[in-house]
């Protein structure tokens, strides 16, 4: 099952990184959101350190949303999705394939946006880089888990690009709050253990929605 998933994920990522359009747009988009934030605040009134965690996570959320929109859109051209569905692979593998591909895609965009964020807002992340990456991964997996499920559904609806954010944003609230809180604690120089409650919540969210999405995904693609 995992082998099948990896084959499809690899195919998606190869397509993505060879054509580069979606990838470059998502990265440039993330960079632009960061700049918009710089001009959307009053630097004399609000200290960067107060706003930094929110800026980081709003940027990641928007960029992630953009990435999720294309996950199944890709398969609609030339009925590629139908071909995937007739292939002798389980629906579960297909979900995990899309999940892995989306996680890597968003992960790479985040990996580029994070240094830009540090550069633009002069946030010291030197000593906390590892725990910060851990929190980013924990929150990203949760929202990609739901997002992948929803993007499979909305790709075959009208107004798909608009429908995804409307359905998905409420689901991003718990991971977003948790991630912002832990990031703020880390940036303030407090130890990771202080955010243990939040980390548990993030982990519980990941487990709950990974399980739920794995169970529900087949019903969204079966004919």
């Amino acid at each position: 099952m995992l082998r099948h998933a990896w084959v499809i994920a690899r195919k998606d990522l190869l397509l993505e990184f060879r054509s580069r359009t979606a990838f470059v747009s998502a990265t440039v988009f993330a960079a632009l959101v960061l700049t918009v934030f710089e001009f959307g605040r009053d630097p004399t009134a609000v200290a960067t350190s107060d706003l930094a965690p929110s800026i980081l996570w709003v940027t990641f959320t928007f960029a992630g949303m953009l990435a999720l929109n294309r996950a199944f859109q890709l398969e609609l051209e030339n009925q590629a999705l139908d071909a995937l569905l007739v292939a002798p692979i389980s629906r579960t593998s297909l979900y995990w394939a899309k999940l892995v591909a989306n996680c890597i895609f968003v992960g790479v965009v985040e990996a580029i946006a994070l240094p830009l964020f540090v550069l633009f807002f002069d946030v010291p992340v030197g000593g906390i880089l590892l725990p910060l990456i851990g929190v980013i991964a924990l929150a990203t997996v949760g929202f990609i888990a739901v997002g992948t499920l929803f993007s499979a559904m909305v790709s075959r609806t009208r107004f798909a690009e608009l429908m995804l954010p409307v359905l998905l944003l409420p689901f991003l609230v718990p991971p977003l709050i948790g991630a912002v809180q832990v990031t703020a604690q880390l940036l303030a120089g407090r130890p990771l253990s202080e955010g243990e409650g939040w980390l548990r919540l993030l982990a519980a969210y990941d487990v709950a929605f990974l399980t739920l999405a794995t169970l529900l995904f087949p019903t969204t693609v079966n004919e």
Partner: protein
Amino acid sequence: MTIAQRGRWVSLVALIFLAGVYVRALVFTPEERTQGLAQKIFYVHVPAAWSAMLAMGLVGLASILFLMMKDYRYDRFAAASAEVGTAFSLVMLTTGPIWAKPVWGTWWTWDARLTLTLFLFFLFVGYQLLRGAVNETSLRARYSAVLGICGLVLLPFIHLSVYLFRTLHPMPIVLKPSAPSLPPSMLITLLSSFAVFTLLYIGFVMQVYGAAAARDAAVGGGR
């Protein structure tokens, strides 16, 4: 008599009782000492919130049943419940701020329960938007069932995460481990209001459900 017609009668009876509850709340129930007249809105606000939560719970339950049995009656019920739930959550979201302004001194605050109900409303709206964006009956039923189930799982997470964040909302006064801390006269008014709102919910859902059933029967032979 069709379901829709019976629903109309149930709603009518409920509305008459509702008038009775209003009279009892305004005339025969003592005024609360610190909050004064503003507290009277509880007799509408809390039962409306109850009906909205009930609606969401039943949307989730009907969604699970639909995916298990593939019986379109569950789908129709879930859709009707979501539509009625939207109305009740709007009542809750408008009466809440009217009470909060004189008592808390602010229309809105990002407290756990307020945020939860706001997202309950967003979920209801998203649910209906999704239904509107899918034409095919079977696809629409499966998609909305997936969203209904995910929504039900999401709400505890939102509540927990915002609860960890901060809370200001009055603590539960009826459903709590010790005896309810309301004086009997207020408690009776509140409980009868709960009953009336539940009856209203039933009446409204019957009407919406009946109308949808009639429409489906006219369009496609009873599915």
